[in-house]
């Protein structure tokens, strides 16, 4: 017995009798006898109190935002998550339900996704948002596939070297079997203007991130113009929190815009599950991958929500589908919808301001420390690059002893920067926390 299985011994006897079998083992006659019922070598089961103790032992062996000050971002961000977000996510009506293929009994999920799509469009200034992809990196890979489907006959994608290194790696992994060339990031020092100059008559899309991986904000309009002049699409990857203050992909004229949606009410969770935000212009909606929710009416003329434009999807189109994606990040999209609803117009602006001003305060303080240099790379949002007097690994090791998780070590991905770390400051890092970081760095310098 387990506490999850409600079939009693008596039930089993009656049920086997109805089936016409004597023993439960008889139901498995189709399995080769010599490979039937393997003995599994697994740890003995634990009761809930024992398991809680074991879980607690494991979780205590990890640092986390409650035990350490986090000044690390690089694609996963320690942003504030209002308590109400998780309370909504914990509703069984949401988390124990399935994909809303039966709309009459799924209006809750469908309305939530419709509102997610609407809120993302409002935030980004884009026309269409889908019901989400796995994460920011896979959303970008889907953008590459969509671009070559939209711009027929072109198979080259030009990416900026300041696009997150892991996103570029994910794109290369996912697209290795198909004839799509990813280029533009061979020189890690290349400027965006230099990258845009690589866009030519065989290019399907230019992909640029702003704020970029190193934290710098860019005016994407000239890049969009360059891409369009060559007949290519502009794909912008953005930080949804930055949009509380800064230029939207819609304003930048992007054709496709993607983001890692984790900052919108989805916790750090050691890297997942996260949220792949995917948006595009109206004219490309039939080429979009993933689920879409639309509005219609029922037989009594009541407003209702339903999955729509389904002919693009794998369960109908099979090998001719726009993607093999089946799921979306439903629960994470719900988190983002609740988050955006709670923060709203004022809150989104406030969070962006807190990140911006605190990050600039931190940069100014660190710039005064002997041995440290804050690189001037133009306007930045919440992340910035600091050249360090000693290798980053060494500095981070001593920061750890002070309960601080330091910045991302850039020496691997961007060797031309030398000993440099990418620091991140959000609304979760108070002035006192920042002063503590500066003090700790000073000792190291």
């Amino acid at each position, binding site marked *: 017995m387990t506490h999850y299985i409600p079939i009693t011994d008596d039930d089993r006897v009656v049920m086997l009798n109805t089936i016409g079998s004597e023993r439960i083992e008889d*139901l498995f006659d189709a399995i080769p006898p010599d490979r039937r019922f393997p003995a599994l070598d697994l740890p003995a089961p634990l009761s*809930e109190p024992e398991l809680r103790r074991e879980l607690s032992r494991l979780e205590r062996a990890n640092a986390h935002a409650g035990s350490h000050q986090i000044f690390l971002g690089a694609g996963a961000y320690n942003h504030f998550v209002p308590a109400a977000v998780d309370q909504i996510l914990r509703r069984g009506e949401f988390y124990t339900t399935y994909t809303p293929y*039966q709309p009459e009994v799924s209006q*809750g999920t469908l309305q939530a996704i419709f509102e997610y799509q609407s809120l993302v469009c409002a935030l980004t200034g884009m026309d269409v948002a889908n019901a989400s992809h796995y*994460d920011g990196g896979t959303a970008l890979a889907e953008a590459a596939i969509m671009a070559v489907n939209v711009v027929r006959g072109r198979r080259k994608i030009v990416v900026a070297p300041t696009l997150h290194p892991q996103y570029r790696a994910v794109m290369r992994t996912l697209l290795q079997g198909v004839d799509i060339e990813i280029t533009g990031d061979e020189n890690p020092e290349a400027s965006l203007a230099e990258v845009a100059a690589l866009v030519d008559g065989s290019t399907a899309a230019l992909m640029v991130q702003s704020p970029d991986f190193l934290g710098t904000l860019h005016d994407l309009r000239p890049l969009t113009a360059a891409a369009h002049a060559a007949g290519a699409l502009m794909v912008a990857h953005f930080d949804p929190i930055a949009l509380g203050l800064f230029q939207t992909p819609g304003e930048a004229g992007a054709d496709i815009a993607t983001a890692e949606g984790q900052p919108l009410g989805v916790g750090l969770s050691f890297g997942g*599950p996260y949220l792949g935000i995917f948006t595009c212009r109206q004219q490309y909606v039939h080429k979009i991958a993933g689920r879409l929710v639309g509005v219609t009416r029922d037989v009594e003329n009541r407003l209702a929500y339903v999955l729509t434009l389904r002919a693009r999807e794998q369960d109908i189109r099979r090998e001719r589908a726009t993607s093999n994606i089946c*799921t979306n990040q439903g629960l994470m999209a719900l988190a983002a919808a609740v988050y955006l609803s709670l923060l709203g*117009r004022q*809150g989104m602006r406030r969070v962006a301001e807190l990140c911006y001003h605190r990050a600039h305060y931190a940069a100014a303080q660190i710039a005064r420390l002997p041995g440290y240099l804050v690189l001037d790379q133009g306007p930045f949002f919440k992340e910035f690059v600091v050249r360090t007097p000693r290798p980053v690994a060494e500095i981070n090791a001593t920061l750890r002893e002070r309960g601080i998780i330091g910045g991302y070590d850039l020496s691997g991905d961007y060797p031309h920067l030398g000993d440099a770390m990418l620091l991140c400051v959000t609304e979760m890092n108070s002035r006192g926390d920042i002063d503590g970081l500066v003090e700790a760095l000073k000792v190291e310098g």
Partner: protein
Amino acid sequence: MMHNYEPPIFELSAPGKFGANLPQLDVPASALPDHLLRGDDLASLPELTEPEVVRHYTRISQRNFSIDTVFFPLGSCTMKANARLHEEAARLAGFAAAHPLQGDELSQGALQLMYELQEYLGEISGFDAVSLQPAAGAQGELTGILVFRAYHLDRGDHERTEVLVPDSAHGTNPATAAMAGYKVVEVKSDARGNVDLADLQRKLTPRTAAFMLTNPNTLGLFEEHVVEVARLVHEAGGLVYGDGANFNALLGIARPGELGFDFMHYNLHKTFTTPHGGGGPGSGAVGCTATLAPYLPGPRVRRMEGAGGFEFFTPEKSIGRMKTFHGNFGMLVRAWTYIRSIGAAGLRKVSETAVLNANYIQARLKHVYPVAVDRTCMHETVLQGKLAAAPEVRTLDIAKRLIDYGFHPPTVYFPLIVPEALMIEPTETESKRTLDAFCDALLAIAEEAARDIETLHQAPTTTPVRRLDEVRAARQPILKYDAEVFAKLRAEGVQG
């Protein structure tokens, strides 16, 4: 379910409200770069307080069926009950608030959990190596096909351009093969619901890179010639991919690695009861033979030599990373907790009971609803909505009428090779009382269909909305809230 209409959140907004209690600015303000600011001051985002937001989402939640409220016999979806402890576990601060790049030293608990889960999944399925990275089943499939591709190319075998897929396969299989650059070749099923061996042999050629097989297949049947199928594919130089969507039938019953599969994905959100979440997140860990292990996506976790402890590593010939960071970690915590709470005997009990329940439903219904292939089924049974007493009835009508009886419909019209398919997967977490009530409802519906088919055509009548105009939704897509569009709908008489 709640029947009252709930307006879009944008219509509950009023200027000046906010719903989050944020810190005050405690540092001097810095100059903003004017030329980079957004121009609309976020004017189209809504403005609400916390109580309004909570009520709104709570109200719409009540317009859903869920496992917590009703039986979800969705074939190939494994809608088993979601354990409450798992939700607590994944939210422990050391898991939920850990940064993915904080480094191995600060992440030993998470790494140990991942290492152990790799070991458990390998043991359960008979595979030598496991990667937890793929985000969902479809990504697990793509991982497998890309690993196969890398393996063939690494051996200098460049001629393999085709992937074979049974005609009963999930749509993700052919879509995946196409996404990996392969031509899809379909293999027929035989009268007993197995892969047609003669057709398979005809289609196996030096161009065959792989055969993708779901076992039990989507007819709910164990592939009787699975060992022979694998032998034939291997003889042709191909590899066998296992779609693990139906693995809930095999825990402690058989190990795919011992049946001839080279690679498979696990749907942790099915078999290992991480919640479906209304469509995701999934989690599609993969397992494979030692031969293929060097090509797996990284990072994986291993024990450190000497001192003890755990570390991330990337296999030497890895195809690369499938997604950002290390996989859907929160789902891994839930799956680990599940395996530790029921152990080996519990897992076998899960599959035995899932199979018992499906066969019980099949036995109770097959004299009224024809069974696609009359054999002992595994964890699901495929019936047909073809009633002798009401030949004009359609499966869709039966499915919609089930809703009025308080049940989520089964998977319908799948697999594609079965006309009017009703694919029923009860899982092990339902009581006999529920299974009987479900069978009674389907039998009652068959009688209704013979007596007054209009009752079925009208169904459902007990839901917040009734049947929808899906054609209109696709012809005139409205994919986001727009006050003018909604006003126009209302002017046309749409209520809401």
